[in-house]
């Protein structure tokens, strides 16, 4: 069975040409057979998944699906708490942690009918990776298993790309949905900060952390986002406003939408590979062909965003981990414990200066969003690099393209826009105004449909 999209699976369930039980069974079988190669999962919940699939099938046969994702095989990044199922953050520190309750997003997807196949690999506590000294190995990129998946939602990117789940949860503090999305060739959206609950998700940096979905297509991301968005009074960052409809206008196109290409980000501040530039040009061409107007957006330099972002991320992460660092320093993997130790060198004044800089950078971007509806740039400098080249300090050494929009809280979507000569995917990033996630998805849908790259899947042994 070739893996359907979520939208295709739901249609198949409805017209009874596809069985939820068979789909879940097939996904589980492939996931378990592939896992020794791609290491996307750190834990399977096969028995519970098959029981849920049987119940889903009965509901579909009776014409009474329980929600908009009934029967869809998904999985959760292992920083999302799952009732009765260990949640470790891919770390030795939490090896024995079995939550009593589901994270809010896990509960919402469960209520929508989604079926979790298990827990997915992540960089340790969403920052420490790729690491080889943790209880589980790092996930591998299904397009070439010698390559990095991107992180920290590494298992989600790998599992979706391999077609063993139809979607999954990620989290994004400095790019952790968008980078694995780009390098694994899947769609992923970092929603507006405050749109989706973070209750029950292990924190990394509270003023940046965002939960969000990853899936094979933009439409699937929209379906998953619709089922997880909404105000949560238990999350102090949650926006108390009506949940936006990200589905109804998804196919309305971008005629008249103003696109601002942040050319200096990917041509000057952090020049991308020629293939990546080709992918960016292809995405711009697709949007122009669909009636969007294309202009050039100039923002503060990428380095300015990254300096403020990394200081804030490091400080907030250190604060979250401080008690464990004192007591269990050697239980962390080398990458994370040493990054957190460096984070201890950020002073209180450094942190506040970074937050003052953040306010200035947000103002600069907000001003630019009066001229443009959508911003476009790279999501990564090029194709996925060999995993052994990913060094401990790599993220500090050069800027990334994703951090700016964690600082500003804007929605950011990654969509595949091409392939490198080595047949590795190349993702572009689309950014909208806060709470205009629907428009970002519309623009991504336009690019995806025009470039029609979705039929190309990684070649895997099973």
């Amino acid at each position, binding site marked *: 069975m070739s893996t359907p999209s979520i939208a295709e699976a739901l249609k198949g369930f409805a017209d009874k040409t596809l069985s939820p039980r068979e789909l879940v069974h097939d996904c589980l079988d492939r996931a378990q057979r592939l896992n020794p190669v791609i290491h996307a999962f750190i834990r399977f919940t096969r028995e519970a998944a098959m029981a849920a699939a049987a119940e889903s099938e009965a509901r579909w046969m009776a014409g009474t699906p329980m929600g908009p994702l009934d029967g869809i095989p998904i999985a959760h990044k292992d920083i999302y708490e799952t009732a009765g199922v260990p949640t470790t953050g891919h770390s030795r520190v939490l090896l024995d942690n079995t939550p009593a309750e589901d994270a809010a997003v896990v509960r919402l997807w469960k209520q929508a009918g989604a079926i979790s196949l298990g827990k997915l690999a992540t960089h340790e506590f969403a920052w420490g990776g790729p690491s080889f000294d943790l209880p589980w190995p790092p996930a591998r990129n299904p397009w070439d298993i010698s390559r990095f998946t991107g992180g920290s939602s590494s298992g989600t990117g790998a599992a979706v790309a391999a077609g063993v789940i139809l979607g999954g949860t990620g989290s994004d503090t400095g790019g952790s949905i968008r980078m694995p999305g780009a390098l694994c060739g899947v769609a992923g959206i970092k929603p507006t900060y405050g749109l989706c609950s973070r209750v029950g998700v292990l924190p990394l940096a509270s*003023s940046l952390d965002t939960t969000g979905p990853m899936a094979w297509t933009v439409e699937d991301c929209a379906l998953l986002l619709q089922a997880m968005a909404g105000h949560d009074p238990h999350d102090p960052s949650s926006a108390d406003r009506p949940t936006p409809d990200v589905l109804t206008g998804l196919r309305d196109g971008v005629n008249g939408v103003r696109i601002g290409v942040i050319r200096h980000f990917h041509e000057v501040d952090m020049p991308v590979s020629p293939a990546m530039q080709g992918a960016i040009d292809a995405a711009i061409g697709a949007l122009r062909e669909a009636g969007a107007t294309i202009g050039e957006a100039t923002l503060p330099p990428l*380095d*300015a965003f*990254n*300096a*403020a972002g*990394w*200081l804030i991320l*490091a400080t907030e992460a*250190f604060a979250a981990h*401080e008690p464990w*660092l*004192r007591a269990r*320093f050697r239980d962390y993997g080398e990458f994370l414990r*040493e990054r957190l*130790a*460096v*984070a*201890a*060198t*950020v*002073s209180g004044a*450094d942190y*506040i*200066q*970074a*937050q*003052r*800089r*953040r*306010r*200035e950078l*947000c103002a600069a971007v907000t001003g630019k969003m009066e001229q443009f509806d959508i911003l476009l740039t790279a999501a990564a400098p090029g194709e996925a690099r060999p995993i052994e080249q990913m060094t*401990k*300090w790599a993220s*500090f*050494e050069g800027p990334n393209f994703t951090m700016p929009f964690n600082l500003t809280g804007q929605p950011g979507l990654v969509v595949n826009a091409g392939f490198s000569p080595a047949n590795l995917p190349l993702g572009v990033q689309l950014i909208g105004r806060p709470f205009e996630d629907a428009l970002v998805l519309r623009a991504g849908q336009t690019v995806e449909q025009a470039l029609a790259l979705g039929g190309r899947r990684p070649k895997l042994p099973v």
Partner: protein
Amino acid sequence: MAEPLSRVVFDAVMARAGIVLSDAEAEGIRAASAHVQRFAAAVRVPRPVGAEPATVFAP
């Protein structure tokens, strides 16, 4: 590239954090503190003394 923290200051910071390191670890992490120093310099742009951080909130 900014300079890393001096060994004296670095050791004091690690002691305050309760992190015990070997000499080799300390030197590797101390060298990486140059990145933090570079970021810290970059966020110190001229601004009015009353410029608010992004973390203010309305009670």
